[in-house]
């Protein structure tokens, strides 16, 4: 049998994704398997509960993207009950959603993904004067003096001298796949540190609109924040000023730091513009609705399906389509009443655990059988990728906002053809591009909100259908959210005022999906095939591609280890073993 590498866990936060990759004699990956090793189970907790409180449970699926499951949940209930939310409430939601993208993507880039490309220790060899020159040439960001970068370098030196690399302790420093000049490494390390200050300011948008962060408050029918310019406890002029200031800070950082850094780093990794593509199929549920969540024509990010890279034939998938939208469990640790080779639409979804894997600790999973706690969602039987690349392609195909200009100008800067977007680098670039699009869009949303307030339209909650007595005895709803990591859907079935069935199909379920009943591999599994590894027991190349999807395993799978053992293990960062 071919040599199989195991990378487990792969995220620096949350954890519990396991990748097994087979390499050939030349150390190129020939097959890859993606497994979620923890179960979520929130669907079971929600049975028979009040649908109006489901959001408070679902948002606990993750401690990082703490709004997305709440949004998908309240939208699913509003969809089921036909609740229309006031315009001001929708604008406030859209501001929160845009903030979440900027916050999440910047933190992902600098704190999770950058270390795959940036050699922190190599920054010690940099000439701070040259780093200052680079900074001044790429943007107007004020922290650009040689003295500033010399100070950052001194901090890196102090950490290295102390022998405690701390948060960087698990990096593969000195790995031959690191290609940046020392000066660019130093630039990125400086911004890694600055992003920590930045996030503290931009999170205020969620704190104000949701009362707290993480895990802001939500309400079915609107937002829990009243608007009253003369009240100390409502959205008033003072708080609007803080929101406006946060928006400006987001835009400045994205325009002057994030996007320029991406363009400064990418030219050294153009080999990743032809690696890590994966499926070539993409799906979005869409985002930034207008006044009506069901009117997809108003969305900034359209609801769309792209097959085989074909941007000319983009169609709109219907999440209510019982035939096309299905989840499979042939290779997942679940069982279906009608047999494990059948597929189920989420409204008919079942959450019946059936663990058949080995008892931990184990060396390898039996990938011919069931091997993951993730189900395998498929659109019309086809595996698809979701996330920033899907959104940017869909906006590109539909010529939305500045997408074409931005994509074309990034490609021109890198001297790369359009095909280069279907890659690890393309995915990482798409994340930065959409961050700029959404950050800039915040100005429009904010101005619309101010106009509504000035016109006296300050209602933020529609309570007409709040009482269960006003509900039909049977109702089905779909709630969408383009989470930072991709298309998220919640499907709810309400019967006699209670939740009869609830299914969450999260972005990482699509991307990290195991094989299905036809043995079709998922997005992660496909994206790794063909990637050569320079040092097989330090598979940095695997991390680059998997991190480019921004895995958030706590979203996909959660809470219960099958036998409780792993909870006690300390395994932040990476454990890599060769078997």
């Amino acid at each position, binding site marked *: 049998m071919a040599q199989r590498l195991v990378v487990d*866990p792969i995220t*620096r*936060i*949350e*954890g*519990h994704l396991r990748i097994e990759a087979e390499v050939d004699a030349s150390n190129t990956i020939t097959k890859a398997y993606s497994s979620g090793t923890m179960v979520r189970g929130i669907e079971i907790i929600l049975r028979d509960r009040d649908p109006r409180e489901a959001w408070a449970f679902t948002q606990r699926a993750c*401690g*990082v993207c703490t709004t997305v499951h709440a949004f998908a949940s309240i939208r699913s209930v509003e969809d089921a009950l036909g609740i229309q939310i006031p315009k001001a409430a929708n604008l406030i939601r859209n501001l929160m959603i845009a903030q979440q993208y900027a916050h999440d993507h910047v*933190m992902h880039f600098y*704190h999770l993904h950058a270390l795959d490309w940036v050699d922190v220790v190599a920054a010690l060899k940099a000439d701070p004067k040259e780093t200052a020159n680079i900074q001044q040439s790429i943007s107007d960001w004020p922290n650009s003096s040689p003295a500033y970068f010399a100070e950052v370098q001194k*901090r*890196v030196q102090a*950490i290295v001298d*102390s022998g*405690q*690399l*701390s*948060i960087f*302790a*698990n990096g593969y420093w000195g790995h031959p796949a690191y290609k940046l000049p020392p000066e660019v490494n130093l630039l990125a390390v400086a911004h890694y*540190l600055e992003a*920590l200050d930045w996030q*503290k300011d931009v999170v205020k948008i969620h704190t104000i609109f949701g009362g707290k962060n*993480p895990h802001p408050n939500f309400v079915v029918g609107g937002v829990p924040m009243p608007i009253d310019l003369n009240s100390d406890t409502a959205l008033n002029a003072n708080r609007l000023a803080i929101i406006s200031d946060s928006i400006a800070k987001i835009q400045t950082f994205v325009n002057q730091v994030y996007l320029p850094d991406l363009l400064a780093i990418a030219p050294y990794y153009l080999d990743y513009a032809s690696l890590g593509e994966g499926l070539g199929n993409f799906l979005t549920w869409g985002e930034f609705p207008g006044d009506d969540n069901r009117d997809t024509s108003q969305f900034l990010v359209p609801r769309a399906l792209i097959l085989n890279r074909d941007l000319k034939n983009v169609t709109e998938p219907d999440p209510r389509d019982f035939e096309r939208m299905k989840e499979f469990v042939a290779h997942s640790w679940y069982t279906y009443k009608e047999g494990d080779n059948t597929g189920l639409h989420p409204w008919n979804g079942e959450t019946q655990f059936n663990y058949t894997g080995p008892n931990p600790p184990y060396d390898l999973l039996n990938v011919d059988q069931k091997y993951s706690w993730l189900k395998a969602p498929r659109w019309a039987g086809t595996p698809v990728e979701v996330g920033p690349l899907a959104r940017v392609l869909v906006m590109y195909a539909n010529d939305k906002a500045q997408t074409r200009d931005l994509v074309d100008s990034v490609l021109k800067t890198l001297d790369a053809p359009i095909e280069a977007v279907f890659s690890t680098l393309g995915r990482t670039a798409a994340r930065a591009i959409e961050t700029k699009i959404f950050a800039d869009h915040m100005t429009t949303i904010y101005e619309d909100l101010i106009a509504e307030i000035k016109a006296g339209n300050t209602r933020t909650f529609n309570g007409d259908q709040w009482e269960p007595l006003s509900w039909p005895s049977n109702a089905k709803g779909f709630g969408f959210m383009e989470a930072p990591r991709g298309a998220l859907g919640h499907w709810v079935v309400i019967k006699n005022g209670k939740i009869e069935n609830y299914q969450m199909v999260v972005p990482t379920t699509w991307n990290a999906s195991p094989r299905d009943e036809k043995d079709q591999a998922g997005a992660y599994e496909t994206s790794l095939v063909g990637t050569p590894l320079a040092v097989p027991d330090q598979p940095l190349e695997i991390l680059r591609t998997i991190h480019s999807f921004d895995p958030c395993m*706590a979203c996909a799978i959660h809470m*219960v280890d099958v036998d*409780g053992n*792993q*909870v*006690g*293990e*300390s*395994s*932040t*960062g990476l454990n890599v073993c060769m078997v």
Partner: protein
Amino acid sequence: MNIGNRKIVLGLGNTLNRDEGLGVHALKALEEYLRLSHGQQIPVELLDGGTLGLNLLMLVEEASHLLVLDAINAGKPPGTLIELDRDEIPLYRGIKMSEHQVSFQEVLGLAKFRGKFPKYLHLIGIQPADISIGVEPSLAITATFPKVIARSIACLQGWGLLA
């Protein structure tokens, strides 16, 4: 080294995993004791840090005095107290058992990296007995709380924060 002046006692851990959340439970015991002895005039902030990870960075950086209560795996018998002072705390992975988010040692490491390390920092850890699913800490752990409270008071007195 640090511009902040907050005086904080921080309880850490996941209260859904029994003793993994002992730092939070110990914090509540300490709070109860201080309410009885000091009424409303408690001169330190008592904060439940849960499993917030990176979100705790700003709080750490704003503290001049930081006393941390947390579960520590030192391979000792359950209920053993392990105290580490400022420069004895390892700033890399290894102590925190919950894998949720960035570990607190990494947060401390980042604060140090950014030149915003609390001037007074002390960790009181307890070796957990049971970190399986459950919301109550085990008896072996709650039995140590009087000692944890006494050591916390001594630490805060040593810093001149309590009479």
